[in-house]
């Protein structure tokens, strides 16, 4: 699984593909205060990007991928 859903935290790892988007949205709707850990994530599919942009959850940890971090830090603010 590219996303591991914990109680209040969704941990993204490596490449998060299109198939995760629906579960991500559901989880975020159920856990409005849920945070996102992107530390080990290198890329998210555009479908996940639009979910994150729509919900704008708190980022618990930024991606170590510099370019992704740059994109997401501006888009999710």
């Amino acid at each position, binding site marked *: 699984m590219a996303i591991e859903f914990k109680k209040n935290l969704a941990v993204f790892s490596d490449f998060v593909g*299109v198939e995760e*988007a629906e579960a991500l949205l559901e989880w975020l709707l159920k856990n409005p205060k849920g945070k996102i850990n992107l530390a080990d994530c290198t890329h998210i599919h555009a479908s996940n990007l639009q979910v994150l942009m729509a919900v704008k959850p708190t980022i618990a940890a930024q991606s170590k991928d510099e370019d992704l971090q740059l*994109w997401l830090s501006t888009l999710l603010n």
Partner: protein
Amino acid sequence: MNSLLEQFLSEARDFLQGIGEKLMQLESDPTSTPLMTELFRFVHTLKGNSGLFDFPEMTRVLHASEDLMDAVRNGRVGYSQKLADELLEAMDFVGVLMDEIEAEGEIGKNHATTATELAQALRSLISDSKVSTPVAEQVSIDSFSEDGPAVKAISWDELPTLNLAETVAIELYRCAINGDAVFWIEYTPEPECFFKGEDPFFLARQVPDNAWRNAILNNTASSLVEMDVFSSQLVFQFLTSAPAEELDDLFRYVPDQIHRIEIPALAFVKPIGNTDESVIDDDFINNTLLLLENDDLDGVARTIKTMLELSAPELWSSSALRWVLQLIELEPQNKAAQRLLLESLRTLTPPDWSTLTHSVQINSITTNPVISVDISEFPETLLRDFHTVINAQREILSLPANTSGEWSVGRLKSVAVSLIGCYRAINQAHEVEAIDAALQNALAENSPTPLLTWLESALTNVPELTVTEEDPQIATIFPVATQNEVKFGRRVEDTTAAATASKTLKVDQDKIDRLMNLIGEMVVAKNALPYLANRAETVFGVRDLAREIKAQYAVINRVAEEMQDTIMQVRMMPVSFIFQRFPRMVRDISRKLGKEVELVLEGETTEADKNIIEALSDPLIHIVRNSLDHGLEQPDVRLAAGKNAAGKLLIRASQESDRVLIEIIDDGKGINPDVIKHKAYEKGLIDEATLERISDQDAVNLVFAAGFSTADVISDLSGRGVGMDVVRSAVEKVNGTVGIESEVGKGTRLYLSLPLSMAVTNVMIIQSNQQIFGVPMDIVVETVRVPSIHIQRIKQKQTTVLRGRIVPLLSLNDLLASNVAQLPNEDNEFATLIVRVHGEHVGILVDEFRETVDIILKPMTGILGGLAGYSGAALLGDGSVLMVLNPRELI
């Protein structure tokens, strides 16, 4: 909303309607050149209008539609079903945008994608029939004006608004100045791209040499729960200095989703910062401008650097000064830009570079010599425009003579007048004499040469610019002007010409309604005069005054009636208002059903009151839908029955005295009365006896009976059951009637008969139980007095025989639930109103008949509105209220 926008919307809707109609007509006559020309003109004008406003989505779609229609008109693209569909869809989209503009004053941001898609779909129809167009070129059609070197640069209006950090902006500006094109890219992935395995975000991350990038979410769902995560709603935007080829290559699979614009260098020059304060004063600006005029760029730089040391760096003015330094360094020749930027310090608003580039374009592309005039005296724009006009005249004079080798006097004169105007406008009136002399020679020779010679000399000999306050030579103008007036003597002030400019006036409906109400009140008020006259005579005994009042009343009465007539005329609308949607509707439905239908509309110019027309709209749509759904057969069935494959649907309007008759006639399978009879019997609408003896016509009429139509009936029947009772009640609400005739296998004719106007109602006043009531005259068949001995009781019900027909009698007091017997007259006769209700004659017993009057019927509102037995109330001349009965509901 401002009036220009209102005008635009109102006119645009007419155009959309027109476009729809022309497309329909074109469908039946696909090669008609006049139709195509007309269609093109509609689209073209609509596009032009939309360009006056900032509605880029609308303009984009219309522009593509126009290009497509232009191609069709010129025979480059053939007319096709697909083409009509695409165009109709585009026009529907434009309609949606207009609704939004009307409601919100602007277009929502979420339409950009649709607009681009529609535009591309339309353009693909053009390019399908040509060699496929490279992407870059297609984009350029959208974002650049088409041809000619004069408009090679993009329009400033189309540039995206850039809000960049100053350092980023400076970097991009330097790139652009150094010849590395900077592109604005907008990447709008198609919504369904995820299903094609695409990852737009991945692609977006590959864009090289990003100076700035962003993503926008156009979430159309109203809540997160409804968000469709698998439909892309993203738009990515970039500013990049990467080479065009590299970008083309990157986006080679999604070229149609890319909008690319090259940004001119100056667009980046946009000071930012705090505008609340500024340490710059006019002296500083003037001094710096002076240094600039003297080409002392070092001096300019020095002054600015000193000022920058004195100012806080976050000020807008500091930002502007830093930009001036950049301009001086990188574009030392571009004085105009430097000047404009310095000037902007006066207002602390960014300079409008569009004014500048325009003049730069003109100067750089034109081969025409430019007159150098003392710039300081006039705004730069005026001089630029001056040159434009002068060069236009030069171009005109250089044109070859027309085919007959003649130069028309009008053209020569107008060139001279234009030149004179130009020179006067820049206070160079002393040239007028020379121009006039050249004109006289030109006219004498019937050749443009003298004027052209003068113009060339004026263009090479830089004119002395000695502008004085009052140029005495301006006086030479006046002889020319007065001479013209005397000579042509046609300066008649004709106000009529101006007044006829627009013969129709669009008026808000509320105003008309208000006017009608006022006229209604006036009609009622005027009715008080006869009462007054009566009182003058009987109560006060002044017969002369009574007579005068009556005479006056006659005059007012006539005027009031005319006013009433006129307002009725104003409210009249042609039935085409409803008819015009049928071609599209019939086309869409029949295509969905797989049927072929030939729709014929007749009598579209027939007029009726607006309320009637509006009330007619829904029932009519209902009926037409039914005809298509259940009346007309599938093509194979029709062919088997020996009919044309295409069914015929005729909708005809005509006027019969004071009523409008609307007929909907189809040549479908008709209605089988036996089926209806049995269904009605099963539904319990008729008893067994009726089932046996009911006539075919009466059986068919049962489709209008309430409770007849249910979903399971339609599938068995020829189908006309659906909601026909709804249709009937809607029509009866406006005093209309509906009828049906049908022949099995041949078709069905449905007809609606409606009053022309419902504003004024003619009612008969009757008296019952010491009260007066109104009864609408249009349902009163006759009034009779029935002797009590002729009233028979059949099973609790009173009846009488009238001209050999049994007529049921009902007492009004009973109907109104008051337990009082009707009063007969001295001869023991009962006053009886024979009314026609649902095609049957019924007698209503009342106490006494009174006069008939015209009234303005007002529907009752509030609690009284629920009383079905009344159709409304009206004020009488003596101020009393008349309740008007609705016998249809009462019985």
